[in-house]
């Protein structure tokens, strides 16, 4: 018991210190690295709070994609940002009030969290689990009970891709500081494992922590590794652009097709008939994972390819 308290305390102190470094440290690169380590510790916190699904997603997205995005953005930014004075003189006294407001918000949040009614929807979900076609509760909520949220989430991602691509052509990568023969070797060794692990996560999603999002994020991280070694030239070719866009939208399209099919058959939007639920959810998961992987790669290009 004392041990688990020591563990929690260490985690909390580490998180606060890393957040401090991320936010108020003087060195930009140290801030980015601190944030990446912050993500690692968050995964441990999710484990402590018995949320292995979130730990998986945090591991796949935080360690893989967010870190990669931050590091590559850092390499493209000027080394020292031009100093800009954000505060006008009359705003200076407001700083203290803003600090006080943030502190009060923290206290208020703590108090509200303490007072919220505790028995959540666990019992309702458990009673409906049999009708959803999957055996794992979080997957059931994500893809069946609250499928609309997930549909909109995929739409948000697609919108973000559209925003990133609308900014201009894809940025050309720099040459590394020296020849790195280890990098293609790394890609060759790891790539089959990326495919294997994401297929495994996808398959596990129906009955245990896993599912389309971690699987797609892992596949996307593997794709980022491919982009690093310039091994996906087809992405920049004119000929493949239409196909690329179709694949990017595949998850959303599959979701919409299922939702509209539900509307036609049962009369309710997103009502999946129970006998069809398991195969349909599998189809949605495969399409969504593929789309998410491609969208992660699309983010990483920082612009539209093939232009």
């Amino acid at each position, binding site marked *: 018991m004392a*041990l*688990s308290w*020591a*563990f929690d305390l*260490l*985690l909390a*102190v*580490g998180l606060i*210190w*890393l957040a401090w*470094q991320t936010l108020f*440290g003087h*060195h930009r*690169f*140290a801030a980015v*690295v*601190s944030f*990446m*380590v912050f993500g*690692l*510790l968050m*995964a*441990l916190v999710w*484990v402590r709070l018995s949320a*292995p699904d979130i*730990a*998986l997603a945090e*591991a*796949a997205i935080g*360690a893989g994609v967010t*870190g*990669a995005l931050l*590091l*590559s953005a*850092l*390499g*493209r930014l000027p*080394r020292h940002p031009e100093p800009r004075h954000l505060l006008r003189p009359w705003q200076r006294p407001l700083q203290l009030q803003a600090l006080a407001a943030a502190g009060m918000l923290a206290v208020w949040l703590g108090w509200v969290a303490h007072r919220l009614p505790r028995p959540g929807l666990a019992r309702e979900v458990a009673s409906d689990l049999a009708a959803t076609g999957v055996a794992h509760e979080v997957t059931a909520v994500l893809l069946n009970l609250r499928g609309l949220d997930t549909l909109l989430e995929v739409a948000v991602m697609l919108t973000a891709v559209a925003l990133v691509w609308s900014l201009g052509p894809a940025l050309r*990568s*720099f*040459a*590394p*500081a*020296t020849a*790195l023969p280890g*990098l293609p070797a*790394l890609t060759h060794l*790891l790539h089959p*494992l*990326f495919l294997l*692990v994401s297929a495994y*996560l996808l398959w*596990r999603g129906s009955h*245990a922590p*896993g599912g389309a999002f*971690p699987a797609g994020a*892992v596949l996307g*991280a593997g794709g980022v*590794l491919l982009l*690093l070694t310039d091994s996906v030239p087809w992405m920049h070719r004119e000929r493949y652009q239409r196909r690329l866009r179709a694949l990017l939208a595949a998850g959303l399209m599959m979701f919409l097709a299922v939702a509209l099919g539900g509307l036609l058959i049962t009369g309710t939007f997103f009502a999946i008939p129970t006998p069809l639920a398991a195969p349909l959810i599998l189809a949605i998961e495969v399409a969504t994972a593929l789309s998410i992987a491609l969208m992660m790669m699309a983010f990483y290009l920082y612009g539209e390819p093939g232009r």
Partner: protein
Amino acid sequence: MTTTLYLAAATLLLANAGVGAWRIWRGPTSADRMLAAELISTSAIAVLLLLGAALELPALVDVALLFALLAAIATANFVTRTWTLLHEDRSAREEARRD
């Protein structure tokens, strides 16, 4: 018995990673900070494995597997995307040596 042992080991590893995190703050080069992050990520994998064994949660092994798989991504990004600035102009390179 083994449960307590593994929990103690996990706590020790976490504290040890905290000591290593001093390097992130201290530097002096970017590579040093990256090395500290790598040490912490290895420690996190070990902690996850030990916790998974101690609390009998097989799902944690999957999380550790993901971390191990993605550990290389950060390093590869760092050397191909972040440290490339230094190659091109000498002033940035000189700066990085002190930095």
